[in-house]
């Protein structure tokens, strides 16, 4: 074990007003280790994505504490969050979230550009990441010319190239057939093994529990091992 990179303690997220109150996450506590792939599983509407957003510092919890790379980020100033996200977290989305006007390699390049990495080095890293996911030949393609599986691999390459210690994936196989889904999960596992990254996958695809290191279950906002 390489130690915890993210820890949440008693995290609760409430949406709406007193009259329309919805508890999306109720007192969740967990710690995520480096080099480990954790799947958070549960049915739709169980609060998985909200938990992922809190882990990724996109949402703030209503209660509880969040620690990222040993730093309590719960009350961190809003202006400090983007820099911390750039350094520490890579996202993989169910809908891929590729920039439609950018080619595959430019999509991968983007987080490196945001980090201020010189263009030549960023381009080399982006091409290497695309090569790593088997898409070197598709580097100049726009997302509209890629299949669903290829788009997801570009999305993974974007996280790989950024070399962040934490990768958060939201239903990464949700829009893929089972064979492509298995390949994508394999890529995420190897990312954790080779880079020592913490990978957290949120999914309702129970087939994934075979290929991850740890499974957490979520139901009605409550998290359990």
């Amino acid at each position, binding site marked *: 074990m390489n130690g915890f990179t993210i820890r949440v303690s008693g995290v609760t997220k409430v949406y709406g007003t007193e009259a329309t109150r919805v508890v999306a996450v109720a007192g969740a506590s967990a710690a995520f280790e480096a080099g480990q792939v954790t799947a958070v599983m549960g049915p739709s509407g169980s609060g998985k994505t909200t938990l992922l957003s809190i882990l990724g510092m*996109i949402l703030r919890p209503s209660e509880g504490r969040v620690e990222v790379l040993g730093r309590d980020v719960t009350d961190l100033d809003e202006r400090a969050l983007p820099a911390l*996200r750039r350094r520490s977290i890579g996202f993989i989305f169910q809908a891929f979230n590729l920039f439609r006007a950018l080619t595959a390699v430019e999509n991968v390049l*983007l987080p490196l550009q945001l980090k201020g*990495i010189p263009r030549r080095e960023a381009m080399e890293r982006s091409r290497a990441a695309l090569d790593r996911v088997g898409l070197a030949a598709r580097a100049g393609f726009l997302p509209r010319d890629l299949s669903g599986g290829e788009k997801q691999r570009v999305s993974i390459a974007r996280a790989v190239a950024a070399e962040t210690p934490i990768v958060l994936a939201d239903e990464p196989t949700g829009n893929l057939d089972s064979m492509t889904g298995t390949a994508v999960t394999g890529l995420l596992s190897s990312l954790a093994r080779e880079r020592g990254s913490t990978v957290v996958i949120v999914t309702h695809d129970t087939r994934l529990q075979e290929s991850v290191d740890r499974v957490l279950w979520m139901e009605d906002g409550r998290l359990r091992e």
Partner: protein
Amino acid sequence: MSYPVSIARKNLFHDRVRLAITLVGISFSAVLILVQMGVYLGMMYNTASIITHTDADIWITARNNRNFDFSLPFPEHRENRAKAASGEAEVEKLILAWSLMKLDAGGSENVELVGFNPDTGIGGPWDMAAGRIEDVKYHRGVIVDESSFAKLGRLEIGDFREIMNKRVRVVGICRGARRITTAPILFTAFKTAQELTPWMARQTVFVLVKAAPGEDVRALKARLQKVMDQEDVYTKDEFAWATKWYWTLHTGIGVGFGFTILMGVLVGAVIVSQTIYSATVEHLKEFGTLKALGADNPSVYGVILKQALMSGAMGYAAGVAVNFVVVHFYQQAGQMVIQPWWLFAADLVLTLVTCVAASLISVRKAMQVDPMEVFRA
């Protein structure tokens, strides 16, 4: 943090139809502003062209006279007071009078007669196309501006016409003295002008003073104002501006051009804001993703602003190109259009400011993006 420059450019060129609509809107706005301002400046130039081309530093007019074309007469002996106060300065009388010229084809046409001293040439034509200025001294000679041919028919040196039942002879053709009143302009000798307009007997409309070399014009004006207590005394610039202001503020010209220019700005702003807003809404998830990847708010807004500025710059460039074509047709039609460099600079700034202002609505939308938007499938 490095600025994600390429997103703005790539987004802009990715949707070419939207880009084309945006550019057409901005170009239309730029052309409207450039052409309307150019025509306005051309008209204002015409209103004051005789003043600016006359070699006189001081213009003395009847009291409360506000412009060149409708100036009222005052007794010509008042010139003597001006002469007494002017010292070494040169003093001349100048008549501007409306009269009627009989047309060859029948009927008459209102004309503006400018009566000047042909011995000094002060107040006379400044750009002769044919003939000699001093010939106005003989046979009731008149010099006709080329722009008058549209109303008077083509005239040649030696042609005869009638003004107030008196025969005049065309002795010259000049250029550049077109009036905003659209009345044909004829230059003649001061005495001939008085003869052709009997109500001007022993009257003048202006007394012009040309300061001696090195003389302080302000001091000369102050001296003249003291003795010309029944008239107004202007410097050349003051009278030119007074004339321009009269036509701008006391006629519908200022409001008309101002409204058209405002429409141009508004049309540009509406089209740009609409297209940038719809583009922003369409890319909202991408902006959310950009934030998730670690872009701070200024960088995201920067993408939107950059799109707006690039649209503005390209639309403006296209607008300038179209403007030159439109101006060519205006000039072919005989309309003077003046477009100094500062007009292009001001229009560029206005276009960019409009685009940035229009994009602020989109920035507001991007600010309100739901963070969870990025997770929606």
